[in-house]
């Protein structure tokens, strides 16, 4: 049952023996972004989406600004972000509505924010997460549909999921991230001369065999496992697109500078070590984005129920949020709060890193929309109302930044809907039950 006919394979067959050529490939959808704008020099720069997650939330009285709009004043727990206040918007007062479902501690908040649905059991993702939906729209033309990093050292610290069990695992080692993106298979867009690797076309043949295996298997399959085989097939199709892209001569990208290969570093949960690894991973991620290897990135600074700790301390961040007493003089938990402040400091550094890459007339950050979020507001009580959210970047001029927007108890799904629409996902309603919404946050849209 071989499918014969005009495939890209037959077109290319015989043309390539490793010589430098430019092949007249048929224009494929994958080479266009969600808005039909091309990557050619002078044309609009690509739009990117990212998430930045930290665990165990904040102290509402010390994090939430008072005044709405552009005139919001910095608060103690946002102080570290002072230099970015014009580039980010603070969203306060948005809730995950549980609608009578149990509060799955450290899970309901993040799942609700990213899927618009409160989970019935911990880590239940009934639909793909926000970043996956957006990557399906804007990420199909790059070598990686999305890239994930976790500074906390565990590949499982990733909230980018196609389903409960299909997790886009995070890179935790700067060296491994470097090798994946800039190692074998990387094509320097500024190399000048393009030599398509014949091995890539041989790999295309592998995929066609695998696709037929899947086709045969599908015919024997009961409904239960079809979804799983579909997920496998989605992965295969992405691998196929990746090869198509790698066979295409890349557009020169002024912003793309190749990093040096980093050293192997130790991973762990001690806060200084995590902060250092976060910086190294973020720098590589920024260059991966600048070199247009991906348009969607997900960063975990610390996981939900944050396991970050200070050297020599017997309790980690999560334990502290529950066990530390509120200091009567200060009115908050000083030890736990230290980690909130460190998290905001790290987010500030992340924005610095995106800003440090010049692109077009501005910086990489100008062409990104970054959602920073956590799984609780006050972690002590696992509160999923008034979640701390921030939107950074200008999304190529589409996102209005520098504001404080109060949600007043609105479902957090409004944020997810807004971001999808901003990124060109054709969706008008999003979320389930009382989180279903068709109301985007017009305040942040230009």
């Amino acid at each position: 049952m071989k499918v014969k006919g005009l495939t890209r394979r037959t077109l290319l067959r015989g043309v390539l023996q490793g010589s430098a050529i430019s092949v007249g490939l048929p224009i494929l959808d994958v080479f266009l972004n969600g808005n039909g704008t091309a990557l050619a020099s002078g044309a609009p720069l690509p739009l990117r989406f990212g998430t930045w997650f930290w665990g165990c939330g904040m102290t509402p009285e010390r994090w939430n600004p008072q005044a709405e709009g552009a005139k919001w004043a910095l608060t103690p727990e946002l102080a570290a972000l002072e230099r970015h206040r014009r580039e980010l918007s603070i969203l306060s007062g948005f809730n995950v509505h549980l609608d009578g479902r149990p509060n799955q501690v450290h899970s309901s908040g993040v799942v609700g924010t990213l899927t618009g649905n409160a989970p019935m059991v911990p880590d239940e993702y009934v639909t793909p997460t926000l970043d996956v939906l957006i990557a399906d729209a804007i990420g199909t033309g790059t070598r990686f549909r999305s890239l994930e990093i976790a500074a906390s050292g565990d590949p499982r610290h990733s909230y980018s999921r196609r389903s409960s069990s299909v997790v886009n695992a995070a890179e935790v080692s700067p060296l491994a991230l470097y090798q994946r993106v800039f190692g074998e298979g990387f094509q320097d867009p500024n190399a000048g001369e393009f030599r398509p690797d014949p091995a890539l076309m041989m790999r295309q043949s592998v995929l066609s065999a695998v696709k037929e295996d899947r086709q045969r298997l599908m015919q024997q399959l009961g409904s239960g496992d079809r979804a799983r085989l579909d997920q496998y097939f989605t992965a295969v199709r992405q691998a196929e697109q990746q090869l198509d892209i790698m066979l295409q001569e890349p557009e020169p990208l002024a912003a793309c500078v190749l990093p040096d290969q980093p050293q192997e570093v130790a991973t762990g949960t001690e806060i200084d070590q995590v902060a250092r690894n976060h910086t190294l991973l973020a720098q590589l991620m920024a260059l991966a984005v600048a070199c247009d290897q991906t348009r969607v990135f997900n960063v975990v600074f610390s996981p939900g129920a944050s396991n970050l700790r200070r050297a020599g301390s017997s309790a980690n961040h999560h334990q502290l949020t529950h066990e530390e007493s509120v200091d009567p003089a200060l009115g908050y938990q000083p030890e736990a709060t230290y980690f909130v402040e460190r998290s905001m400091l790290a987010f500030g550094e992340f924005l610095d890193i995106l800003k440090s890459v010049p692109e077009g007339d501005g910086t990489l950050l100008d062409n990104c929309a970054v959602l920073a979020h956590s799984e609780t507001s006050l972690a002590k009580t696992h509160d999923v109302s008034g979640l701390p959210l921030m939107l950074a970047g200008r999304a190529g001029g589409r996102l209005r930044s520098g504001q404080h927007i109060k949600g007043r108890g609105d479902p957090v799904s409004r944020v997810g809907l807004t971001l999808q629409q901003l990124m060109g996902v054709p969706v008008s309603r999003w979320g389930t039950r009382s989180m279903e919404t068709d109301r985007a946050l017009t305040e942040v849209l230009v």
Partner: protein
Amino acid sequence: MPVLHRVKRSLILLGVCLPLSQTALSSVEASADNQRVVGMKRLTESQYRNSVADIFGHSIELYGRFEPDYRQARLLAVGSAVTSVSPSGYEQYDIMARGIAKQVVAEEGREQFLSCDPLADACIDEVIQHYGSQLFRRPLSRAEQDQRVAVAEEVMAKGGDHYQALEYALASLLVSPEFLFRVERVEPVPEHPDEARLTAWSRASRLSYFLWNSTPDAELLAAAERGDLYTRQGLEAQVHRLLESPRLEPGMRAFFADMLRFDTFDELSKDAALYPVFTAEVAEAMQEQTLLTMNEHLLQENASYRELFTRRAMPMNRALGMVYAVPVQSSDDWEPYEFAEEGNRAGLLSQASLLSLRAHAGSSSPTLRGLYLRETFLCQTIPPPPADVDFTLDEAFAKLPTARERLLRHRKESTCAACHHLMDPIGLTLEQFDGVGMFRTRENGALIDTRGELDGRQLGDAKALGQALSEHDGVPACLVDTLLRYALSAPDLRHQRRALDSLQQAFSDSGYRFRDLLWQIATSETFYAVPESQGASS
């Protein structure tokens, strides 16, 4: 080709599976239309590693990283039946597949891996058939075979040589869903076409992944081909052989590690200032010690499972000597060690692995240890705390020196007490072991009181807890439940109640011998039954 000829002969001597007969190929072809898939289990990381090593040899290196395994209903084996492959996971499988295939055709590997010269007629076909039938755990269908030959032809058309042609054809087997998943199929029973049964190949895979955590070997595949796995005698002969094989130990190691959740060691982080002894090497040795102990006790000695909780002998190495504060002669090897009868340790629960795994980065945790023990050894679930509970210790509590005193708070509040009385009193007996399992008598200067309680039985210390567990009827019952769920990748055993009861009885009759339990499960009808929801009527 005298050299290659010799290689082929030595492969036969090594028992390496050679291409299955043409008859087998066509019989599979003929029946494939009647087959239905009733289960897909993604190979776990260890299953992938073992399968590749068993098929290609232990010299093959794997490049790439595995997608994390997924745990459901306390077992990775259960999660494997619901998870799939993410795009980044596929990317890694692809890297590994190409890495393996490259080593197989590399100049230095050819003599070991290839039975013929790819330049020779029909050799590529032969090698695909040879490795394909092992990787897919059944003969390839005609279409699957042709597809790989087409890959090889295409690669040559694109300028590749014969070795590259073979390389990519092999890589296409290694990223196929038929390899990455254990695909289980049913077919109509020949004498009763309205009834379904697992195909012989699916039976073989189920058996070998259960007992060996790896792919069926040539002999098992041959038994499947002959239909032996459908006869009592034939099946028993194979189960007997698998149980006597040296591959049983690495196979059961996977079960022990899954049951004890040793994969979570990867997430474990201890404060270096508080626990300088806890290095990566020590963490590794802790797990190894427990796995070696279980192996010795349950497989080599075939001793009673109950006695695992009072056993005083455990292997020791120099890295662990520091943790246990015992002298170790050998500098780089394991040696037997037995704690004195009047010593402070006995049984699995006093091992540093379990004590470290369920403790905080900078302290012990009676609650986490109690919870782990209930879940792992008694198969009980305890609901999570209410989301809005205020865990904050009053100043008065926070200043108290020992965990026992600080945890009194749990007893004072009725919302906490309802569950915590099931956990804390167990964990408190283990309080003389700190966050990495080192012995201590004081916490913050105050003497530690190790009294506790398990299901109404008063306990004086950790050894009394071990004794109580060894006499607890829930303990062997839980092992049977966990092992059967592991074997079937089943989240629960609602549909296997009667089988479970009879296994429990048999386990008890055998004096709680683990090997006997393995035999009972591997030869039971339940183990090969067609999943309830996927019966004969389709």
